[in-house]
């Protein structure tokens, strides 16, 4: 339900919520994107950051050569949003903060 708000944003491929161990709680992705793989990746990265930097409920933005990932750890779980490189990440962040 909440995720629809995120996927409405232009150039967002999809969004999901994952448990800290990488299982998908909820997801909404366009065809061609694997929500489970992204959830696993999100959990792995957040776990590493939590362990290494003692960062609680941190936000991570990863720019890759193909797309941009926004990961946010909340009490609900880990939000992960996959966007095109030129998506409005500021807007995505605001939406995530609103729905969390």
């Amino acid at each position, binding site marked *: 339900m909440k995720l629809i708000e995120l996927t409405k944003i232009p150039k967002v491929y999809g969004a999901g919520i994952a448990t800290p161990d990488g299982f998908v709680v909820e997801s909404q992705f366009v065809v061609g994107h694997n929500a489970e793989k992204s959830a696993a990746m999100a959990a792995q990265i957040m776990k590493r950051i939590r362990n290494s930097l003692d960062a609680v409920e941190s936000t*991570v933005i*990863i720019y890759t050569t193909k797309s941009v990932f926004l990961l946010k750890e909340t009490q609900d779980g880990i939000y992960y949003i996959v966007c095109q490189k030129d998506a409005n990440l500021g807007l995505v962040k605001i939406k995530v903060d609103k729905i969390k």
Partner: protein
Amino acid sequence: MSDELAIDSGALIFATLADVYLSSGMYDEAISILKDGLSRNPNYALAKVILGRAYYLKGDVGEAVKILEEVYAQAKDSENTVLHLGHCYRKLGDNERAIQFYETVLKINSGNKEAAQELQSLKAGPAASVVEAESKEAESAPMAKPVEVPAAEKAEVEKPVEVPAAEKAEVEKPVEVLAAEKAEVEEPVEALAVGIPSSASAVDTLFAPAESTAVFPLERLNEPMLKLLNLKTVKGALICSRDGLPIMNYYPKITNLEELCAFIAAIHNESQNALHFIEEGDIDRFIIEKSNETICVIPVGESLLTVITKPEAKPGLIFVYARKIIDDIREILG
């Protein structure tokens, strides 16, 4: 640093390590790692220049010339290369070519004091040569014997400051030459063999930070880095290798530099693996927003540039400034 080199054999840090070895008088070690590094990065011109200098300091001027000429053929406007070639030819006694090279240095950089000084002393030439020849004959025995100088004494001698005549005489006692004539008389070969600078020549102060115009490679980053650090929201920055070893630190307040570098590299590598797993390509950059600070990491070749900012910082602005530094890092470290 040698551990770092062992772990990350692909990095171009070997040139920096070699420079450290050279300043410690460890010429063979420097040559060894430079040769090894150049076998993997044959186009790394700076390393070749340092190798040339290493051979020069070791006394193998012929090899030094061979290497430096090779670099010179590719980059005729390289101030350091031309300067060192001047030194080499001077040492080989080919004063005419030495003068040509020193003049070229001054064309590239008219403020190069070292070249100006060498040129001046060479142009005072013929008299010097006569005195030199006479002196060599008279002092041949002591000159032929290399002078053993303790490291501490060497360090003191190598300070690029003006040494009073009396002090010079003490340092160069075995040569027993009148202080007034020394400038012209001294043959730098023997002095070089043990790393003692000649009083008249600045030949041995190659790469000496205070007098030479040569700059430690990463020091070139200071200027762009300063602009970045001048941003109010930037707390500091650091450069580490992809395997987590610190290269440069611009975050003076940091207490656990090695730990932070290791963590940043671990996060980067793990994220990279995860992204490869989902076929999302390579990391371009990433931002970690914590409650008390934001960490921006940008992979540059074999290194990671990390900028630590206050939470309210604007990452877009940080990346704009960082882009200028990235080019320099890429050029220096590959």
